[in-house]
């Protein structure tokens, strides 16, 4: 009796173990997990657009700030003065432009006068021609002297010359009328200079580009900073993600859009839901490097190779704010292509 029971138990244990190994293996295949993961968020370096001395810093290290909040203030005095200078230059060019308009009006009326002179010369010439035409037939009959006719002809010729002169004068007066192009361009330049100065003045107040957390702020006010010099960093708290490093052999079982569960090691009792947003396409090779066009290949390569790991990016949904720290350790379990409520045991 006991012999049969013993044999039954023994073989049942063998079969049971085989089944358990198969189940565990397929479960692991369906929901790959990685305990090499970190919490990440976009981090940017906050710097000033304009150089100058920082006169006040409105935030302290590790402060949470909203987009548009004032972070720090560069001394605005030089920029205000520069703006006033530019505004004065703009006024000068505007006045120049008005003067130019008046000059053109004067030149225009001169041209009008010259135009009228043409008409007068034309009338005079007509009169002289008519006088000459009247006198010429009278000369044959002896009513007028040759002297009188010659005088009339001279007057006529003289009036033609006057008409010519008037025409040339009018032409010259019209050509003299200038344009406002140069002065207008000067006004445009001055306007742009004012806008630039205004922009620089506005940029002396540095504001938060997004909702985030101030980090790495160690300097007090008083430091002179140049354009682009990092004052501190800001963590974008709207885009937390977990970066898990999966073995390359596990990647075929992971797809973009898969549901994932992320455990932050600071508190593993609060699993965070997430979605696989991307899978890394490249990591740097440690076995080969190329220097000056030729690859450097190590001579001693291992017989047994360890699988490479690639980053898998998991976008977190409503992560608990108290657990989200850049670089925090985490564990990621991919739950397959099904929706977020799936257990992941379907395979």
């Amino acid at each position, binding site marked *: 009796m*006991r012999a049969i029971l013993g*044999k039954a138990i*023994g073989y049942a244990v063998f079969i049971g*173990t085989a089944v*358990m190994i198969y189940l565990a293996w397929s479960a692991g295949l369906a929901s790959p997990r990685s305990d090499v993961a970190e919490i990440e968020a976009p981090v940017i370096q906050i710097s000033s657009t304009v150089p100058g001395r920082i006169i006040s810093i409105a935030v302290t290290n590790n402060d949470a700030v909203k987009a548009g909040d004032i972070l720090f203030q560069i001394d605005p005095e030089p920029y205000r003065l520069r703006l006033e200078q530019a505004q004065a230059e703009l006024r000068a060019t505007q006045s120049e432009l008005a003067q130019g308009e008046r000059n053109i009006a004067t030149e225009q009326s001169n041209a009008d006068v010259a135009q009228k002179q043409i008409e007068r010369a034309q009338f005079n010439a007509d009169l002289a021609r008519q006088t000459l035409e009247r006198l010429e037939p009278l000369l044959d009959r002896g009513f007028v002297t040759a002297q009188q006719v010659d005088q009339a002809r001279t007057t006529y010729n003289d009036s033609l010359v006057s008409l010519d002169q008037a025409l040339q004068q009018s032409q010259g007066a019209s050509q003299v009328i200038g344009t406002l192009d140069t002065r207008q361009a000067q006004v445009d330049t001055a306007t742009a200079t004012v806008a630039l100065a205004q922009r620089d003045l506005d940029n002396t107040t540095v504001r938060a580009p997004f909702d985030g957390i101030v980090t790495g702020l160690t300097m007090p006010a008083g430091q002179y900073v140049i354009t682009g010099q990092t004052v501190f960093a800001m963590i974008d708290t709207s885009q937390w993600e977990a970066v898990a490093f999966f073995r390359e052999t596990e990647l075929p079982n992971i797809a973009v859009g898969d549901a994932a569960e992320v*455990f932050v090691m600071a508190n593993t009792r609060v*699993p965070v839901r997430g979605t696989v947003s991307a899978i890394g396409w490249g990591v740097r090779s440690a076995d080969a490097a190329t220097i000056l066009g030729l690859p450097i290949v190590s001579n001693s390569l291992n017989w047994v190779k360890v699988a490479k790991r690639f980053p898998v990016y998991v976008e977190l949904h409503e992560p608990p704010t108290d657990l989200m720290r850049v670089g925090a350790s985490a564990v990621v*379990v991919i739950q397959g292509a099904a929706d977020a409520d799936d257990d992941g045991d379907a395979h």
Partner: protein
Amino acid sequence: MLPRAIRPAAAIAGALTLAGCSAAGGPPSIPIFGSFFPAWIICAVGGIVVAVIIRALLIALRIDEHLPAPPLVYLCLAISGGIGFWMIWSGVA
């Protein structure tokens, strides 16, 4: 609050009692004294403990002497016990 050291054991006991009703799994790593241990190591230890207990039971019942290849049976018991704990812990079962 439970002392840190016995938390994983308590967690496994809790997972055992909750087997079947909790769908969500526990974390695949368990922090013990500032180090993160893979859950499967703790489950494997649990499997060995189960095998030892069952061995004592079988010896008491005098079935032990009739087992085919006893070392292999106990090895398999330890393995399947560990896998069982792991499946309960990770919510697969």
